[in-house]
């Protein structure tokens, strides 16, 4: 029979910094063997802290004030460290939320996985290496033979995340804590990972604590769902229950806010449309609000229409402008208008060094000759499989990486010829939101300093106070508490850091913004808020975006034009809607189809498969 693997009882984890932060404030739940517990919740609601509490890997300033965490009957809270060490990695392993900073920069990714293997399994170096390669293959890292010897900085965001996953899976843990394990993965890989997890769970009886903001993913994998809000569990139920009949207004909001491939919203509803939270003496009080159909309808018509390439260009790319094919407010740029950004033949090749003398043994063609134009006021969506060169493209545009070849013209000026002052001048106008929010925040700068800094540099705002007020305002705009301005980056949750980066980018008043997976760590409600904000800004100010994301529904919601990249090349380019409606390339179609589905029908199907597999496993266990 199944037994309770993990039981969390009235857990309270507080941070004792400047002020006390009650990150987790009395939560209880339990997890059975072979089950998957999904945790969703607002960004900053304490999901990661919960998981870190289980692992006993909290920051030094954190303290478990109360409660117990019992794992197979042992209370982890009171377990001495040596004993805990035996459990970590072997019985419980964890995929950390931010793979970028969680990998040791001076060891090859392969050796880091091998270490995990050899710590708990009696394997020789060679065997461990083979196992690592095998794991890499399983999690979909291309060329695993080569990649084992790569260093973290040579891997793309999604690849690093897969390394983390491989590491966590390497020892067949009894409990896997997966904290947003697929944020940086494109949908196909994500599907593949989910398959692996499901398979491990079903065949080996591994339990999974799955933290995500992606309800689609939850629908794909979870058996039960916890909904967290501000350190508390507000709803707890099995998957069907939650999706079918959400009780808590926050859950209702969540379900409503997610962008879907098939929605036609111009603006997204946000949780604040469903509820209002008031912070009172006694805690947080939530008041439900009624969301009428009218309002929903309004969201579909209000807001900015799409802006496509000049008709001439559309024609050339095989998506000729057809009146009526697009929504009424869809426009095309005038034929003789010049693009704001024009990329021609852009190539970025990274040398791969080998041996003690670091001879260059080959090149990774991260970006391999791409051309595209972006017009003023447009949003270009850039999608593609993880590791296909999206980030590199973005960085090359800003010359944060020196391109190997090609032309990047911003307003007719070749960015590659700029230097010194003129380059800085250009950077004033082009901003980038980095894929790795934690890494891109200076650990020794308060958030206030971080957000104010661009204003200081670009001389926005006359006084310090003005800048501060604006910083506070931006914080609020991205859904964060301005009181937190005085905190340092490490005192935030993953999603919060991501929002800080957005706020910082917006503070510069850019004309052009490259958003690299900028909303990947945000729960749907906050994501909706941020996306709405970006859209508003675009409408009012004619901001131009390159929007890099693996979340096709988000891209579809945001993008006017869309580029699909594969292996450093653009394989398909055209109006976003047209591509979704009728993908020309097989590759594109695969991407679209792999998008996780969260309709009840699908959930039921999954649950059925699940029961079957479980039964089979139990039977095989029993027969042994």
């Amino acid at each position, binding site marked *: 029979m199944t037994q309770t693997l993990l039981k969390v009882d009235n857990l309270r984890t507080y941070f004792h910094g400047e002020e006390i932060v009650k990150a987790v404030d009395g939560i209880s739940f339990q997890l059975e063997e072979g089950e998957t517990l999904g945790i969703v919740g607002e960004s900053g609601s304490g999901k990661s802290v919960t998981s870190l509490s289980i692992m006993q890997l909290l920051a030094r300033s954190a303290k478990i004030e109360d409660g117990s965490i019992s794992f197979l009957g042992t209370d982890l809270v009171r377990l001495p460290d040596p004993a805990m*060490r035996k459990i970590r990695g072997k019985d419980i392993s964890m995929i950390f939320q931010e793979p970028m900073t969680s990998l040791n920069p001076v060891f090859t990714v392969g050796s880091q996985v091998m270490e995990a293997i050899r710590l708990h399994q009696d394997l020789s170096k060679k065997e461990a290496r083979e196992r690592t390669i095998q794991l890499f293959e399983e999690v979909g890292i291309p060329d695993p033979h080569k990649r084992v010897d790569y260093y973290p900085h040579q891997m793309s965001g999604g690849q690093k995340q897969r390394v983390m996953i491989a590491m966590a899976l390497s020892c067949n843990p009894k409990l896997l804590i997966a904290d947003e394990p697929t944020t940086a993965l494109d949908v196909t890989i994500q599907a593949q990972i989910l398959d692996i997890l499901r398979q491990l769970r079903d065949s080996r009886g591994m339990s999974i604590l799955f933290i995500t903001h992606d309800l689609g993913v939850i629908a794909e994998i979870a058996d039960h769902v916890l909904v967290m809000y501000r350190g508390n569990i507000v709803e707890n139920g099995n998957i069907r229950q939650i999706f079918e009949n959400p009780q808590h207004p926050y859950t209702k909001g969540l379900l409503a806010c997610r962008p879907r491939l098939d929605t036609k919203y111009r603006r997204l509803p946000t949780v604040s449309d469903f509820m209002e939270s008031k912070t009172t003496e006694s805690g947080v009080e939530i008041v439900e609000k009624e969301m009428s159909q009218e309002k929903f309808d309004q969201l579909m018509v209000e807001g900015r229409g799409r802006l496509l390439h000049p008709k001439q260009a559309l024609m050339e790319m095989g998506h000729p402008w057809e009146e009526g094919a697009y929504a009424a407010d869809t426009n095309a740029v005038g034929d003789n208008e010049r693009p704001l950004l024009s990329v021609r033949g852009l190539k970025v090749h990274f040398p791969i*060094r080998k041996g003690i*003398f670091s001879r260059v043994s080959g090149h990774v063609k991260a970006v391999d000759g791409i051309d595209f134009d972006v017009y003023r006021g447009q949003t270009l969506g850039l999608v593609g499989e993880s590791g296909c060169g999206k980030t590199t493209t973005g960085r090359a545009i800003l010359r944060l990486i020196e391109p190997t070849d090609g032309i990047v013209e911003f307003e007719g000026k070749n960015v590659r010829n700029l230097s010194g002052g003129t380059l800085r001048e250009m950077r004033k106008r082009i901003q980038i939101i980095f894929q790795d929010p934690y890494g891109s925040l200076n650990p020794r700068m308060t958030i206030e300093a971080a957000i104010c800094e661009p204003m200081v540099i670009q001389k926005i705002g006359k006084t310090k106070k003005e800048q501060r007020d604006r910083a506070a305002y931006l914080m609020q705009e991205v859904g964060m508490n301005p009181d937190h301005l005085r905190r340092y980056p490490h005192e935030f949750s993953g999603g919060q850091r991501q929002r800080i980066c957005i706020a910082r980018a917006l503070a510069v008043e850019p004309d052009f913004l490259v958003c690299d997976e900028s909303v990947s760590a945000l729960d749907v409600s906050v994501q909706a808020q941020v996306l709405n904000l970006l859209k508003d800004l675009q409408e009012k100010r004619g901001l131009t975006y390159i929007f890099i994301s693996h979340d096709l529904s988000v891209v579809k919601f945001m993008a006017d034009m869309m580029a699909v990249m594969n292996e450093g090349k653009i394989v398909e380019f055209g109006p976003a809607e047209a591509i979704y409606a009728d993908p020309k390339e097989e590759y594109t179609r695969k991407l679209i189809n792999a998008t996780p589905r969260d309709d009840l029908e699908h959930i039921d199907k999954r649950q059925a498969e699940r029961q079957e597999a479980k039964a089979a496993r139990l039977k095989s266990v029993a027969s042994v």
Partner: protein
Amino acid sequence: MLTYIARRILIGIFTLLAVTFIVYGLIRNMPGTPLTIMQETVRMDALMSQEQMDKLEKQYRLDKPWYVGYWYWLGDVLQGDLGRGINDRRKVTIIIGERLPKTLILTGTSLILTYFLCIPMGLWSTANALTFRERLVSTILYILYALPNFVAAVYLNLIIAVRLEWLPLYGSTGEGYAEMSSLGKLWDILSHAILPVLCLTYTSLAYYTRFIKANMMETIQQDYIRTAKAKGASPTSILVTHAFRNSLIPLVTIIGLTLPSLLAGSVILETIYQWNGIGYLFYQSITMREYPVIMGLVLMFSVMTLLGQLLADVLYAFVDPRITYS
């Protein structure tokens, strides 16, 4: 990387030229020449005559302006001739070569010992940061640091060499060294080296330990340390492999910087222990204005310094794969 090293070595030659040129200029313009000293060895009732002086100046090329003298020196060096000592009339290579092994015994052992002790102590201090025992140990190290080694040397000599007669008082080898068996020779050298090595080492413990701790404290805060913990790695392995590896950059720098001290020796300890190493030679050569010896030594130090820097720079790329040189 190979080309990088090759290029650095090539450039190193120019750096050497610059250094030797500067040093030659400096020593030739210091007040006093070797002849000043010779004058003083002359009997009280006379100094050397002008002709004698002229002759000597010519012999030692002091009659030429210093930059011309430098060219001559350089020419000789390029032909593999470092010249002869003025006071000690032997070849510079012999003068230095005779002392080099002795210095290496002292400094090499001390350097190895220092790192051997300080790295574990630094790691230990990191692991025990903010505890009383860590404070205690570091305070003891600071006391040692503040106790000048010429003081310690004398007291150690008094107690260990004079009162207890456990170890020899001075010198690098004992009486009848030549006739000893090879094992006896080894013990002889060892017993002579213990006290000076001890004195040379203990003062530097505080610095390196603190240095390693400071860098480690920075590293162990990083997220990837948490990852290592999550894997179930032991605290030692976390400290030694994960954290230490990441704080190697400053350590490599320091090692590169201390490499030339291998050859430098220590004037004070060499004098106290009558060790006859490079340190005392250098000091004496400067006070005696032994230009050829000074130049020989400076050349040697400089080569070592440049190698140290090159080594550090090359190691950076190994230690941190993110650093590349193109």
